[in-house]
């Protein structure tokens, strides 16, 4: 048994950290890849998709009515703009605030890592992050988040607290993987007839790198980078730790540790998620339309999230047991 509030804080601590890490990763890949020349790719074409991936397109228009998209502006908005609640700075702030609530449920090493991480970040981001210092900062974010989750693996009991921590990070990860694939895929593949051919090594490589999947993909598939295989890998491969299938299976394991609420909605919602991913091939997905498929997945993930909220975090709103 665990307090709903504690469970919710563990969940959000992990979720905000995962989000900061994912945001840093997509930014980092773009910062590194914008440096050399690509024929006909403008700054706007390079940076606009990022806004869609993290769902900040509307904010952007609000803050920059001239609509001009520049490196400096996007980096600022997604990294440190106080007006954007999804920026890295704010995500880390929330992760740390949640961790404070559950200090007794996580190991000292985890708390100290996260606390120092936050203090350093806050100090560093007091000034505007310059594009040429950005790569260094994002690398720092990856390292610290990895250390934190590494410590959770090696120092936490495999009970409910661990289960909620895993839930938060896997759910956020599934969400981000689906968004990255959705947005990038449609930009990179305007012509469906090319779905089986090896395409631009750098652009598709960047997609995989932003999902830490470049090297494992190369090991798995030797025929250049082909859209159909990217879909198979990123959506369906159960061994690739950022794939949708891996995340959903992980969520299932985490729920196993937590235990189901009688008459709760979570089990059904999870079943629906599983059903969406099983018994399909990459070809089926392409045939029915990748965008529709991923949209549907994200919708089911959102329903799952609502069920989680209702079953575990808002349980006190229901009848006393």
């Amino acid at each position, binding site marked *: 048994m665990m307090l709903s509030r504690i469970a919710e804080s563990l969940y959000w601590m992990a979720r905000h950290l995962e989000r900061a890490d994912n945001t840093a990763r997509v930014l980092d890949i773009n910062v590194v890849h914008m*440096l*050399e*020349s690509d*024929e006909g790719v403008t700054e706007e074409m390079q940076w606009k998709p990022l806004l869609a991936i993290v769902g900040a397109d509307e904010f952007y228009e609000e803050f920059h009515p001239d609509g001009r998209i520049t490196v400096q502006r996007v980096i600022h908005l997604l990294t440190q703009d106080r007006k954007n609640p999804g920026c890295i700075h704010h995500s880390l702030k929330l992760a740390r605030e949640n961790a404070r609530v559950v200090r007794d449920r996580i190991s000292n090493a985890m708390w100290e890592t996260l606390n120092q991480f936050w203090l350093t970040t806050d100090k560093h981001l007091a000034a505007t992050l310059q594009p*040429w210092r950005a790569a260094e900062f994002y690398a720092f974010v990856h390292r610290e988040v990895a250390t934190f989750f590494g410590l959770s693996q090696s120092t936490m009991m495999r009970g409910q607290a661990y289960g909620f921590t895993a839930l938060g990070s896997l759910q956020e990860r599934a969400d981000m993987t689906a968004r990255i694939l959705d947005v990038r895929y449609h930009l990179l593949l305007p012509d469906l007839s090319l779905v089986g051919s090896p395409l631009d*090594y750098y652009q598709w490589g960047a997609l995989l790198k932003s999902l830490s999947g470049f*090297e494992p993909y190369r090991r798995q598939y*030797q*025929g*250049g980078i082909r859209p159909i295989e990217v879909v198979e890998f990123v959506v369906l491969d159960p061994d690739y730790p950022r794939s949708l299938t891996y995340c959903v299976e992980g969520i299932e394991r985490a729920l196993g540790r937590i235990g189901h609420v009688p008459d709760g909605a979570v089990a059904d919602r999870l079943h629906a998620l599983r059903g969406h991913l099983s018994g399909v091939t990459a070809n089926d997905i392409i045939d029915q339309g990748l965008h529709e498929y991923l949209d549907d997945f994200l919708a089911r993930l959102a329903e799952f999230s609502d069920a989680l909220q209702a079953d575990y975090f808002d349980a006190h709103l229901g009848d006393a047991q």
Partner: protein
Amino acid sequence: MLKQFQSGGTGQLQDRYEGPVMAFHEFYQDDFRPRDHYLPMWEHIQIAGQQMLGAKARDAHLALHNEGVTFTVYSDADEGIERVWPFDILPRIIPGAEWNQIESGIKQRIRALNFFLKDLYHGQRILKDGVVPPELIYRGKDFRREIMDIDPPHDIYTHISGVDLIRDEDGRYLVLEDNLRTPSGVSYMIENRIIERRILPEFFARYRVRRVEHYPDLLLQALRHLSPRGAESAVIVVLTPGIFNSAYFEHTFLAKEMGVELAEGRDLVCKNDKVYLKTTLGLRQVDVIYRRVDDDFLDPLVFRADSTLGVAGVINAWRAGNVALANAPGAGIADDKAVYAYVPDIIRYYLGETPILASVPTYQMTDPQDRTYVLDNMQKMVIKAVAESGGYGMLMGPSSNASQRAEFARKIEENPRNYIAQPVVQISRHLCYLDGELESRHLDLRPFAIYGSEIEVVPGGLTRVAMTKGSLVVNSSQGGGSKDTWVLAD
């Protein structure tokens, strides 16, 4: 008129170079203004201040150290010392038009040398026509009689080449060596780029630099192209001599980037003229071997019997067409330093074209007249063993002492075919940031070419720098460093 670069001058970068001033300067024009393609970078340094470079240089060293980008230096005393890759932060920049000439020159050489190898190991038309002296080939250490009449897939012998270029006193690009066996350095070309991007993104913002990181993908496609069982199902391995090899870092790098297995000789076995990889799930047939093991050690049944680095039977499997080897055994005869002198003739003979890239004049020690001249003028010469590489087995005349010269004279008399001599070329120099100062150092350039369905030269290469003041020897085994190399898109 050239003069010393001692004075800081009017807003110019300080350069305390003190060596001979005849060498072409990559960065400065004759009037000590930066060349046009260096102006954007130079302006940036002026604005940011030179001390900015100090912090950047420290960052670069730390990053290379942390990532474990190292190489091994051999010495007689011990097994070899691992060193951090020495990297100079100021990039070398090559304008697009200049690159186009380099690229077409390299492609031309590689096409001609592949015709040459095919001919040498089949009809030997070029020897019969008297274009290349037969004894030069037959006495060459790397001419392999064992592979006569074998047809490698698509008649390609040199799948990977790293052609060394230098610039003479007039800035003309010359070929110094065609490295056609197992040329190394490509991983450092890519690591240099990755580091440079991390350290100095400001510089990139002022240029349009062409990419180099697709090299492993080009290599993979070229290797798949060779597969006897078709590209789709090709099983490819990188064959390494092991962790004590100086290029082991590169072997792991390439295997990882291509997503293929890194194997040692003991991981492979031959049965019925097929090569297999020993895996936890049993034997798995191998289609293509990118071998980084020299011919001598490749197959103890055919070449050196005492080799434990190779795979017994691999040459027979290759002959049977069940496995492809890159580069082909026997390719080394075409980059033999004595054969080098004939490459312009080889190009004219097979292609009927005029060589695009010039060569360095070369004296044959088998020619009595040449030999006498060289022995009388050793101080003005570079003397090289024909089948060595990496700066081993070489005498730099101007910096040699009497006993070294006597030793080389004796070796030449003993085995003249084993040596050639070339006049010392004052190879071009460039600015380097060393210990807080900007100084000039000599350098060369090794672009990499891959021969798959066609020949591709990756726009860039490994620029090697002689870090010792005045030195003309750039090999990393002899204390050389390197720079990121930018080819501009224009």
